[in-house]
């Protein structure tokens, strides 16, 4: 509607001043000047033949996917605030990473040994259980961190983290009980597999 209000559209009706005293005014005699550069660079037939709405619609051809719609927005701080730098801590970085790899690598011989030896040792079996618990906990923890970001779902994040901690503790107690009262995890799997 605003464009209709513009007196510039009426200029055909008005008589043009002879020596153009309006050189600095925003109304120009050539209408191309107000159009974006990309449109001016297009071939002439495209400009004249295709309606403007179609040309713009082509940009918005991608289907909107509302899988993760935007949350209620909050604007924190200003544009000039520096990015927050977390306090450096060895436990958050490389040590943690190395610990994870050592646990993962440790699982390989412990998994292969019962297959290769054909027998089992209660000690290696219990180490296998302990490493499985730690490995599983780390895996689930990284899933929770990835899929339940603090900024997006703080409550779900906290609840699932505590559920995981309780679950891991329960699993530890359960495996201890299974190792001490029953035949142990490797032997149980072997027997179930050949049942």
């Amino acid at each position, binding site marked *: 509607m605003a464009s209709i209000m513009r007196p510039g559209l009426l200029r055909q009706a008005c008589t043009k001043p002879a020596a153009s005293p309006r050189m600095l005014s925003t109304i120009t005699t050539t209408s191309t000047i107000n159009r974006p550069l990309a449109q001016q660079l297009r071939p002439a037939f495209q400009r004249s033949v295709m309606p403007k709405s179609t040309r713009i619609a082509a940009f918005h051809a991608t289907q909107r996917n509302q899988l993760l719609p935007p949350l209620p927005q909050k604007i924190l701080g200003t544009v000039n605030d520096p990015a927050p730098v977390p306090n450096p801590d060895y436990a958050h970085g490389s040590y943690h990473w190395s610990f994870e790899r050592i646990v993962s690598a440790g699982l390989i011989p412990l998994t292969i040994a019962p297959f290769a030896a054909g027998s089992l040792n209660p000690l290696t079996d219990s180490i296998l259980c302990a490493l499985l618990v730690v*490995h599983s906990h780390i895996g689930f923890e990284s899933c929770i961190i990835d899929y339940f970001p603090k900024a997006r779902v703080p409550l779900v994040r906290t609840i699932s983290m505590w559920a995981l901690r309780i679950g891991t503790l329960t699993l530890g107690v359960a495996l201890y*009980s299974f190792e001490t009262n029953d035949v142990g995890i490797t032997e*149980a799997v072997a027997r179930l597999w050949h049942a």
Partner: protein
Amino acid sequence: MASQRIFQLGLRRAAAPGLRVQPAGRMVQRRLAATEHASQNQAAEILAKQRIARPVSPHLSIYKPQITSVASSLNRITGITLSGALYIFGIAYLAAPYTGWHLETQSMVAAVAAWPMAVKMGVKAFFAFPFFFHSLNGVRHLAWDVGVGFKNQQVIRSGWAVVALTAVGSIYYTFIG
């Protein structure tokens, strides 16, 4: 376009120095839409509303499925399957004395032995495929962690090697072993 216009303006000035340029004539553009002052909070609210209407970035579906990405997500899915089963078993084992379930090895073996062959194989396949995939792909990940096999070609080849070995291993342990 602005530079062209300024150049034109310069030419005209040079041609007719007497002509006084009016900044804007009587046809000056008038904006008839009303504006109102918005406070800092109101402005932030308007901005927040506008941001909700922004287009959302496209999701995973715009990528072509490749062995690199598919194997990576399968690594996580298989890990969750195996660990999830372990957690469920552990919790059930602790709850068993109170719920009357029999989850000691002997009774479980007896129960499984009574299952039909197809069910047994189905359950074996359900655990064998994730187990082999996660174990073999885990070795691949550990190799990357020490900096081995990082070239694109190597990553693709090792990925398909893991798929092949997984198929062989799990089919063997499902039907024969």
